[in-house]
């Protein structure tokens, strides 16, 4: 299992320069990818714009969206933006797409929330072809275009993974929840007769330091996930706050067959990144990754 780290761009109030510096340091660290998350009606950065900036200051790490809310985007434009980032980054983009969970994001974008599943399906059916044809985007670094992941927990979601994508990206939770989702993704993949196996990505949240930092992290999660109602508290309770918790979390995910685990910060402080790098090195996960 490879381990990546998220950018703090999902935390409202994060300074732009911190984002750039964060990306730069990740490239030098023991991480294999840089992740971004998406929502519209919130004080976060637009994820694909962030990855374009990150592409400029990194050489090595994969640039992953876990996820982008696909149906909010026009298909041709999304294909072009993603192809551009792929070309700019030398083929490092991993495009994770999902329908998201917030109706207000759809309302703000003027997109009918009820049609989100259908829209994602159409999007998935066209993106790959648009990249391969190359008629409306720069030539992607890889002939097939960026790697495509799909998120979500609906039954149709797993069928989409097997039909259109290269893998599945899980939304978070304890390793057991990931294991169940991973089984579904693999079952769909086998049933579709796809060769090999689906790439399985997952994510978690961390806050490292004293009680105040942990509380700040939990506070962010409660706020970010407020739309889930009482469930936000449970998500906050899953915050990883110690090397021990991170070690066990990683082991749980690794045993469930995760290929890449992206750990997201909940406090916009560069010290969080440095501490996470130290923990990974301490756990013997300090080898250099390549993008092959």
């Amino acid at each position, binding site marked *: 299992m490879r381990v990546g780290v998220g950018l703090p761009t999902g935390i409202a109030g994060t300074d732009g320069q911190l984002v750039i510096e964060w990306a730069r340091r990740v490239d030098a660290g023991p991480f294999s990818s840089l992740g971004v998350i998406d929502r519209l009606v919130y004080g976060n950065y637009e994820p694909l714009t962030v990855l374009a900036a990150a592409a400029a200051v990194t050489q090595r790490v994969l640039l992953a969206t876990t996820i982008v809310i696909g149906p909010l985007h026009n298909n041709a434009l999304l294909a072009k933006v993603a192809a551009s980032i792929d070309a700019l980054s030398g083929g490092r983009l991993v495009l994770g797409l999902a329908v998201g969970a917030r109706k207000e994001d759809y309302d703000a974008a003027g997109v009918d929330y009820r049609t989100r599943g259908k829209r994602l399906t159409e999007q998935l059916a066209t993106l790959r072809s648009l990249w391969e044809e190359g008629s409306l985007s720069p030539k992607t670094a890889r002939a097939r275009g960026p790697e495509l992941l799909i998120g979500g927990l609906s*039954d149709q979601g797993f069928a989409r993974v097997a039909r259109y994508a290269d893998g599945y990206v899980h939304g978070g939770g304890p390793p057991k929840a990931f294991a169940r989702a991973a*089984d*579904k993704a*693999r079952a769909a993949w086998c049933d*579709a*007769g796809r*060769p090999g*196996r689906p790439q399985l990505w997952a994510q978690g949240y961390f806050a490292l330091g004293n009680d105040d930092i942990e509380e700040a992290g939990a506070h962010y999660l409660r706020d970010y996930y407020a739309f889930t109602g*009482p469930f936000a508290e449970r998500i906050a309770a899953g915050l990883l706050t110690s090397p021990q918790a991170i070690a066990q979390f990683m082991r749980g995910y690794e045993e469930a*067959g995760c290929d890449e685990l992206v750990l997201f910060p909940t406090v916009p402080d560069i010290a969080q990144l440095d501490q996470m790098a130290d923990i990974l090195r301490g756990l013997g996960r300090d080898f250099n990754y390549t993008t092959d």
Partner: protein
Amino acid sequence: MKIIILGAGPAGLYAGLLIKKASPSHDITIIERNAADVTYGWGVVFSDRTLASFQRADYRSYEQITNRFVIWDAIDVHYREAIIRCGGHVIASIARKDLLNILQRRCKEVGINLVFKQEIQDLADLGSYDLLIAADGVNSIVRKIYANHFKSRVEPGKARYIWLGAQKVLDAFTFIFRENEHGLFQVHAYPSSGTTSTFIVECDEATWLNAGLDSANEEQSLAYCHQLFAKDLGGAPLLSNNSRWINFPTLKTESWHYQNIVLLGDAVHTAHFSIGSGTKLAMEDAIALATALERQPNLEDALNEYELERKPVVEIFQKAAQVSQEYFETIKRYLGLEPMQFTFQLLTRSGRISYDDLRLRDPRFGDAVDRWFGQQAGKRRTSFAPPPMFTPIELRTLTLANRIVSSPGAQETCEQDGTANDEYLTRIKNCGLSGAGLVMSGPVAVSAEGRITPTCAGMYDTRHITAWAKIVRAIHDKTTAKIAIQLNHAGRRGATRSRAEGLDRPLRQGSWPLISASALPYTPHSQVPREMSRSDREIVHNDFVRAASIAERAGVDLLQLNFAHGYLLASFLSPLTNLRCDEYGGDLEGRMRFPLEVFDAVRDVWPSNKPLSVALSVTDYARGGTGVEDAVIFARLLKKHGCDILEVKAGQTTIESEPAYGRGFLTQLSEQVRNEANIPTMVGGYLTTSNEVNTILAAGRADLCIMDIPLRNG
């Protein structure tokens, strides 16, 4: 805090007790419409895990409850003339009356005000309160008053049941199945008080009506049951307590609390009695509510925490209960099973108990299952037998060493002319080396036009004979496996790129015209196929016959025809993809006609000593599509025409027909088709452990299992 609890059942009493214990300053009143000593029901069961939580929550009542316990570890199944026993389950029960007495006493001890015989119709009668706990049962008045906020749904079960007692001591949880001229009745009976037992009688609606029980009074119902189960009761009288025949109502509630009102136990959820968890869930609710109130200073937070804690747990039990309930509602399907298999199927019905679990609980039962399985398969009695998955199986004159099927899946790396090359051979041989009894190829095209991709394996040219003969030799010489080839015509799913690039992506160049039952493209981007003409049918018919004779000359052991996943022959079967107006469309008989003609033609040329199989999507998983009932009809017909084993698949008829994927997602379908159509089946659906396979085989859910070795390690 002033707390009013409505309902003095186990949930209400236990919640009051635990809340008062944690904060003695609370002013708690429990209001019950019945008298203190009136109770319905006979005994309630608990597992050891529940008891551990009682021990932590209130030791004194735990002690008194366990003192009153009847504890046993066996389950007996009375079926046909046999009684099959399985031990090691550890179940405890207590008379509901005793449980209530203990809890009432404890409530009084800690200073709770208990009010009996007070019926509440209007919540205004309750006066003021800070918290109202509604533990007033499945017909909760509180839930009904705030129905818009709680949003609950009640679904009545299809079967009828009556809750009785028996003046008889039992030493096991006892299932009894008795058939008479009216239909099938089953009994769920278990020890309750030490002198009496709980005795629940259940039957389907038709049986109930046939027996005239709809118009029978309590006394007549009792007499009927007493006569029916005379042998099992050994003359012991049946007891009744206002008992009536009802349909079990399954209650699910969206919101468990509203403002300062919270629902508890049966007032918020029910789960079919056959998994015996109603009282357990109710009392666990009480523990969770008391804990949340103690932990959270803010009432809203506490009620949120309670709901969050309990809802997922309850949903898991309701899901298991639903499976169990459906099992008993469709029990007729299993009456063809022999007693041992019937029992194993019954014990593993909800999916929570597996072959390994039963073996651990009762090794002798595990051995007996293995022996029975080996005996019915080998038609001879032995003292020792391997687990079901290593039991040989005979299909016509073919003997497979075990029940595991291994498949390399769709291999798309052959030569452009359809010749299987060395890479193909290596991968298929590796499946044989895995230890599986049977190697099943991916789809092999019966003609160049029938290929899925340009580099699919084919069986349509004399050149192919040599390549296949080489593969068959490699399997026979180097492995213990036999080899099966799946013949396929891609139909409207043809002329696509490799699956590595995604599913059903049409070729950019070098495509060929496609045919299907009707002129409907598979995806919006796919080529529109030609509706098959009479000469198309003749060609396809001859292609399958030619492929079968090539397979025979190459020495293939088992042949399978692909009628699944929306390929050519499947396109005839589904009304979603077959819009024909001729005799090959229309009703099921018309839609089955062409696939059946192909089957008959292949059966004619395929040696009569060799088995022939069909892979079938037994449901389209799509509105307006075929369902399992259609598949059962077709499977019966196939069996009559000489089909030896059916591979159960599902979906992929159209791109919208998607199964709910997960571990063993085809098992339930296989079980239904196998037992209703009485045909051997093989099933995959992402099975990766021997435990899953042994459970499926021993329960009679399939006869062969396709294993997907864990993909994690490549």
